[in-house]
Structure formats: C-alpha cells, structure tokens
C-alpha cells in the first residue's frame, strides 16, 4: 500500500470509524465529536439571515439587536449540544444471540461523568434507542440489531448523537466496537420427533410420569413448558429455574448430521438440528451433536446448548 493511501485510510478511519478499532472504554472527546446544524437549525439560520437583511435595509437597530440576540442563543445552543456529548464514556458490555429472524441485543454502558446527559440517541444500522443519562449513574442501553441470516452479527459502527437542548444542532460521534453476536439457524417449524438415543428408547412418546424423581433445577430457557417452571423459586424472587426430572426425559439422544435424509440441503439440515437441540432441551434429555468436522459429546445445560447452537450458526455454508 503506498504511503498516501495508508494515510488516507488512517484519516478515513479517524473520521468515520469504519473499522471496529475501539477496544474498550471510549471517552468522547472533541476530536471525535462532530457538530452541524439540523434541518430546523438551517431553517432558523435562514430566517435569521432574512431578519438581518430586513433590519439592515430598513435600518432597524432594534431588529438587528433581536436578530443578534437570537443568533447568540443559537451559538450558545451549539456549545450546549457539544457539551451534552463531550466527556461521556461509552463501554461495550456484551453481545447477545438469537435465532434467525430475531434481533441480537448488544448492550453498551454509557457513563455520563458528572453531568446529566439528556436525549442521547444511539443508533447502529436500523436500530436506534434514546436515553437520558442522569449524572454519575452509568446506564446500560441495548441496541437490537435484526439478524436476517445465520452466523455472526456484528454491531457495526454506533453513532451517538444528540440535538439537546434546542434541536438546532446535531452533535454526533462514532464508536466502533468489535462486538459480535450470533444468529442461530431458525429451528424448523414442525420437525420430526427426536431421533432415538443409543439406548433405543423414544423419550418423547413416554412423557413425564408421576413417578419421576426431581433431579434438580436448571436455568430456565425460553420455550420450557410452564408446568416445569420452578414457580416457588420465581415467587421468592430467586430467579427463573426449570425443574429437571430424573428419568423423565429418558436417555440421551444423538443428533447426527449423517442420519438426515440425503435430499436435505445444508440450511435445512441446520434448521432441523436446531429444532432438535431445542426439542432435546425441552424434553430435558442430554444430547450429543455430530456434524462434519465436529462432535459434541452428550451433555445437558445452558452451556452445552449454546455450544451446539453456535456450532450450527457458524457451520460453513458450503460443505468442505
């Protein structure tokens, strides 16, 4: 790369933050904050110009005084708008995950310092959220980015902006964190029942009997049947748990890529497996996942489920 191009790229990065180069905490300093008039600001300035010309033409000293007073107000608003962003700190917190068609939630912390920041808008892609941040109290905001395809979903560049207090100026700053969420393959709408486990028992057909023993509690996951929720724990305020029963779910299942019908393409297979992972989870049965280039031993729980779904999400679109 010739040096000039490198310089240009550096400048472009500095101006527009196209690359996710902000590692951790970002302090919004003046070098990062842009400020320009809004449409309303432009309209007001044009009006001020007309007032100026009229006052000059008719030699209205008071007209000039009022015009300049309002111009002073506009100029002060510029500084206030700038100060509303300047000195604020932004920190990346976490990236969530979702199924295709849902939204990945990215959370950022806004630390306002000693000043109250009003009407600060964060936007990334099509998502925007507006927040008031009272002085001294860090505030977490979540940006929800839609996930149209499976795989990694990057937050991308976030624009923090504000037109407070008068809406005549818009100050904004870019931050670009390397936050990446995951979009799991959408589960097939009506999948066939879970395949048999190695023991040959069809757990889905058996259901839960009255004689089942409570094995313990595990974290609640969306989709768990209501009758399995540990409502007592919820009522106590201890959090959401789901009761896991010994023997209720039956033995472990093996979710195997190779056992799927030949005619299914990659995405259809991933959808089926995704649905089965959820199904096994719902049935409280341990599952093993076996795919080309990957084999997860049979296990159960939140981590295992996430590992399985992540593997599905990141599976290459073309078979090697």
């Amino acid at each position, binding site marked *: 790369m010739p040096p000039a191009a490198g310089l*240009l790229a550096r400048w*472009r990065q500095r101006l*527009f933050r*196209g690359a996710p180069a902000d590692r951790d905490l970002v302090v919004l300093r003046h070098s990062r904050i*842009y400020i*320009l008039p*809004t*449409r*309303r600001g432009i*309209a*007001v300035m*044009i*009006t*001020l110009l*007309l*007032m*100026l010309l*009229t*006052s*000059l*033409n*008719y*030699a*209205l*000293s*008071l*007209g*000039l*005084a*009022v*015009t*300049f*007073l*309002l*111009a*002073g*107000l506009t*100029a*002060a*608003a510029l*500084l*206030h708008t700038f*100060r509303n962003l300047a000195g604020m700190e932004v920190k990346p917190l976490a990236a969530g995950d979702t199924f295709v068609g849902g939204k990945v939630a990215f959370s950022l912390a806004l630390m306002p*310092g*000693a*000043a109250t920041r009003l*009407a600060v808008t964060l*936007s990334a892609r099509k998502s925007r959220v*507006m927040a*008031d941040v009272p*002085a*001294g109290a860090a505030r977490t905001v979540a940006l929800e980015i839609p996930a149209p395809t499976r795989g990694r979903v990057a937050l991308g560049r976030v624009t923090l902006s504000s*037109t*407070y*207090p*008068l*809406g*005549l100026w*818009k100050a*904004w700053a870019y931050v670009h964190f390397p936050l990446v969420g995951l979009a799991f393959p959408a589960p097939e709408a009506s999948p066939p029942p879970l395949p048999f486990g190695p023991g040959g028992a069809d757990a889905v057909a058996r259901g839960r009997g009255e004689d089942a023993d409570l094995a313990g509690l595990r974290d609640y996951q969306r989709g768990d049947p209501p009758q399995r929720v540990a409502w007592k724990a919820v009522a106590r305020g201890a959090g959401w748990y789901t009761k896991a029963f010994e023997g209720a779910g039956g033995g472990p299942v093996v979710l195997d890529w190779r056992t799927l019908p030949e005619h299914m393409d990659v995405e259809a297979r991933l959808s089926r497996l995704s649905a089965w992972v959820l199904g096994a989870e719902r049935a409280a049965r341990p599952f093993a996942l076996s795919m080309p280039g990957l084999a997860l031993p049979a296990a159960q729980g939140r981590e295992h489920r996430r590992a399985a779904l992540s593997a599905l999400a990141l599976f290459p679109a073309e078979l090697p």
Partner: protein
Amino acid sequence: MIAAWRNRPEWLHNEGAVLPLKALQIRWLGALLLAAQVPLAVHLPIWVALFGAMLVALRFALLRRDRLRPHAKPARIPSWALALFAVVLGIAIRQSYGGYLLGRDPCVALLYVLAGLKFLEARTLRDGTLLVCVTMALVITPFFYDQSMLAAIAALPVILLMGGTLDGLARPGADDFEFEAWGTAVKRTLVMIAQGLPLALLAFFLFPRLTGPLWGLPRDAAASTGLSDRMSPGSISELSQSDAVAFRVDFDGAIPERRERYWRGPVLSRFDGRTWTPLPPRTDGVLAPADGPVVSYTVALEPNGHGWLFALDLPAQLPQLTQADGASDEETRSLAQLTREQQLLARVPVTQPLRYVQKSVLRGSYPPASQREVDLNRALPPGNPRSVDFARELRAAHPDERDYVLAVLRHFRAEPFVYTLAPPRYTGEPVDEFLFGAKRGFCEHYASAFVVLMRAAGIPARVVTGYQGGDVNPRGGYMIVRQSDAHAWAEALIGGMWQRVDPTAAVSPLRIERGLGAALPAGDPIPLLARLDGGWLKSFQLAWDAVNHQWRRNVVNFDFERQRELWRALSFDRYAPWQIVAGFLGLAALWALAVLAWLALKRRRQERALVLWDEVCRRLARAGLARAPHEGPLAFAARAAARWPQFAIAFHAIGQSFATLRYGDTGERPRERAAMLSTLERAIEVLPGAGALRDAAG
C-alpha cells in the same frame, strides 16, 4: 471517501419531520405566536389584529375540545378551506391598504394573519419549525413602526419563549419525556441568552451598517402623519390634533425665543383658489450669509416620508451628518440640497430617523432668486372676487408696499377675527367666505387669505409651511417639536426682499409667543401635550420622552454614521476589513472557550458531592474499611458507624446527605442542595484522619 460519505445518513436525517405535534408542543407554539402578535397588533388595522388573535384562540379551543373528548376524531379544518381563506384575507388586506399588497405594511399584516392560519392547521413537526421561523420574522416587524424602549421590552417575551418551544419540538415522539415546567424552560433560555449576549453585543457594534437601503422602500413611510405638500383649509388644524413628535432639537448654545422659532418646511406658491401646492423644486438656492445671530443645533428628525429637513429660518449651511469632522464635503452635499425657496431637501425620502447638525441665521428676509420666481408668485386664479376688490381698494389707499402690508395686518387685528381650531367649512370661495363671512380660522386660513390679498394688490407673496415653536423638555434640556406645532405663515416680496409675515401673529399673538395651548379658546379640542396645564401627566410624559431621547440617540440611531464614529473613536479605521473580521472571529472563539469553561465550572460544582464522598471512601479504606463495589452510601455508612461508634452521627450524616444529593430529587431545589452539601462538608470535617481512625478502631 465518497462511499463513506454516502452512507452518512446522520446529520440531516429527517425522520420525525412528519410526526404529529403533541398538545404541549402546540401550546408552546401558540404562546410563542401570541407573544409575537401582541406587540404588532397595535400597529395593524383593528380587524386584522383581532382576526389573527382569534385564529390562535380557535386552535386553543380545538385543543381543549380534543382533551375533553380524547377518543373523538381530532377536530381539523381542511387545508383547501384554509388556502381559500388565505386568498380571501389577502384580497381583504389589499383593499384595506388602499389597493396594494406588495408594500411593507400589507405584507406585515398578511404575515401576521397567515401565521395565525398556519398555527390553526399545524399538524407535524415540520409545521412547527415553519411556525417558529415565521414567528421569529414577526418579532422584528413592530420595529417598522416603533423603535421605542417599550417596543424593545415588548419583544422580550417571544425571545424567552423561543428556547422552550424549540426544546419541545426537538423531542420527537418520545412520550417518555416530560416537558419541564414553563418556568424552568424559560430560565434555561435566559441562561443561554446570557451566554450568547457577549457575542450578540459584539455583532451589534461591529456588524457593518448600510448607508442606504438595499431595495426600495415603496410608498411605505409616506403614510405617516405630518406636514403635507398641499395646504387647503383644514389640513393643518387636523394635524394640530396630533401629539406625535416631528423632531427633537439639541441646541448648542442659548435657545432662541419662541417667536423666532420658525422651522421652515415646504413653500407653497401655486394656488387654485382653494389648495396651495409647491412649485417644482429648483435646488440651486443660495445660503443666507451668516451676518446675523447664528444658532447651531442638532436635529433628530422622525421619518416624514418626504425629503424635508427642517431648519430655523434661514439655513446658514447645508445639514451635516452628526459628526462634523468626519463627513467629507461630498457626503454632506449628497445628504441635502437647498431650494431657491430656502427649504432643505434630502436626496432620498426620510424613512428612517435621521440626525443632522444645522446652523441657521435668525433673520426673516432674503433676496429672490430670479424675476421668473417673482412673477410666478404674483399669479392669482380667478375667484374670490370680494377679496380681490378689497385688496385693490386698500392698495389704492396705501401705495407703499410696507404700508399696505401693515394695513392688511391691521385689518386682521381690528376686525373680529377668531383664531380657532374649529372653523366652519368654507366651500364656495373659501377666502371670501373666511374674510367677509365667518372670520373664524386657523393659521392656514390666515396665511392663505393674506397671500391672496397680497397677490391681488400686485405684491408677490407665497405660503410657507413648517413648525413654529416647540417645547423645551426640562428633564433633557432639548426641544421637542410636535405635529401640533405645525404652522403656516406667509412671505411677501417687500423692497426687493422676501420678508416673513405671520398674519396669525396679528390675530393671536399668543400662538406665536406661548404656543397653541395658550392661543386657543377654552372650548377648542387641543391635544393633551400642547396644553399648558397638563399637570403631572405632562410632566411624566416629558420625563419619559427624555429617557426615550437618550434611547433613540444611543440605540435606535446607531446607524452607519454612529458606527463610523465609534470605530473612529476606537481607532478601528486603521485596520483592514479582513483584520476586523479576523478579530471578530478571534473574540468569538474566546467567547466559546469562556462559555465552555462556565459550563465546566457548573459541572464541577455538581461534582463536589462526588469528590467529597470519594475522599471519605479513600480515607476509610486507608483506615482499613474498604467499601464493597455493590455497597450503597447508606449501607457503607452504617458499617463504618458500627466500626467507629464514636463517630456514628457523622457517618450517618455523611451517608444520608450524600445519598440525597446523589439519588434524591433535589436537582430543581438549589437551596436544599446547598444545605445538604454543607452538611456533608461539616460532617467530613468532624472525622479524624485515616491514621487516627485506624488507631481509634484499635
């Protein structure tokens, strides 16, 4: 770069422009508009004024209806109806302003009404923006008519409401934002205006003024009251009803006697039997030699819509713009010319307040310019036969011109002529009817009759109009000449010189010696301020006028000339324009830094509680009691109090006051905040240092 620019939706994104206005936003806009309408309304025809205010009131009524019936379809007036309405209004305004719409005044009236209409139909935020802009433009319109201090004060409410309105508009569709109370919003606007004030002042003094208008001022200011260039019976007595100020005068030395104070205006030579009109102006007049008592003074002239500059008889120099040293001869000559009839004529109509320095020599006679001028002033139209016969007879008895003039004046004095503002209407032969009928008249009747009698006897004569007298304001030491001082007198060619003759003085010497109020019979309607016994009201008015005079001198008349004067005084004229612009920008940058520093300082004060609390936490950590990250101020203070029971009260006070400052809602109550802060400070003072604490815990 281009690509990067293309995906830049940010700063001009416009979502929200079509969002509907919320009720509170509409209320702010309405208040803003009303505040702009009120000062203007007094200058508009009454129906326009009422109508505009009514439109605003109607919208408020609709809002109220919507609030009372939240589920009904919101009341709405269709746009086409409003457009039609606007056209009708435009036509009506055109009619009421004498058939033209493109002048300044009808445009102001139209803007006033259209703003009301727009408010009535405003629906979206974009409408809101437009309304704010229209309102801003409305704010300066009253200054076309009135730039008094009162007018300036009347403009303040709009400016104070501007911030809150813009703030309200700037929060589109965010229902979770409660607008602050009106007072808070106004206070914040006030702070921002105060912050912008230095910049505004700088701009006011530095922004270059124009020497003349950029575009024409068509027919606008001509409608103002004042002398006219036509005189018919009744035209000046009508003017006498007006207290309006014609001009103010600062004399450099002693003020001449009232009977010497003839302020010369239009000279009328043409007569059609009823109405006097001027000859076309010939601007090659010769200044009177300064061989008599010379008076020098400064005139602050109100706009009169004509080119007339008034001066005491007779002008000894051309008027100079206020600073005598600065204006070159070129500029002075371009300001005004002298007509052959010794009237000062500005080159452009006086549509703005104007100040000029003038010198006059107090004398009543000067030579005619040409024989033709003399002949023109001898012409008499047919008519008024009795007057003509009377003049011929009298002239036969008094062959000497001077004797004849005295005889005519004697006639006025001897016969029962009455000086009155309420003469009968003279219709057929006005001069005959006046001289031989009712014998009641105002100055224009006497001047007119006198000139007719002169011309009928072959003596060239003409009517001079202007002002006579003027009141000295004891508070300000300057003189006010009002429209009620308007006067008409005569000039006759006697002994080869134009001589001033005032027939009114023959009938009513008091008018000349003491003014209108003294001269008129008790029953006559005369304006309050021309009366002699105005009492405290007149004295109050004079005091008020004195303040206004200063205001005019220093604020309103801060025009091109005054600015040049100031720049000269500050030696600005040594700098090139770009240097002045650079200086201005530099000062503006300094201003920005100063305001930012101010904001930072304010923030530092808010931060104080946090700083103090951090200090306490650090001290306790050194003493062996570290605050857990999750621990709130109250819990930590309680733990500290348990560890050091002897300081329990101090710890509780610290915890309480810090928690209140930090998490309480004292934000809007500064006094309470200050009290809390001082509690916190004093409680911290009580605590010993970290070492002592460690030992105390022992």
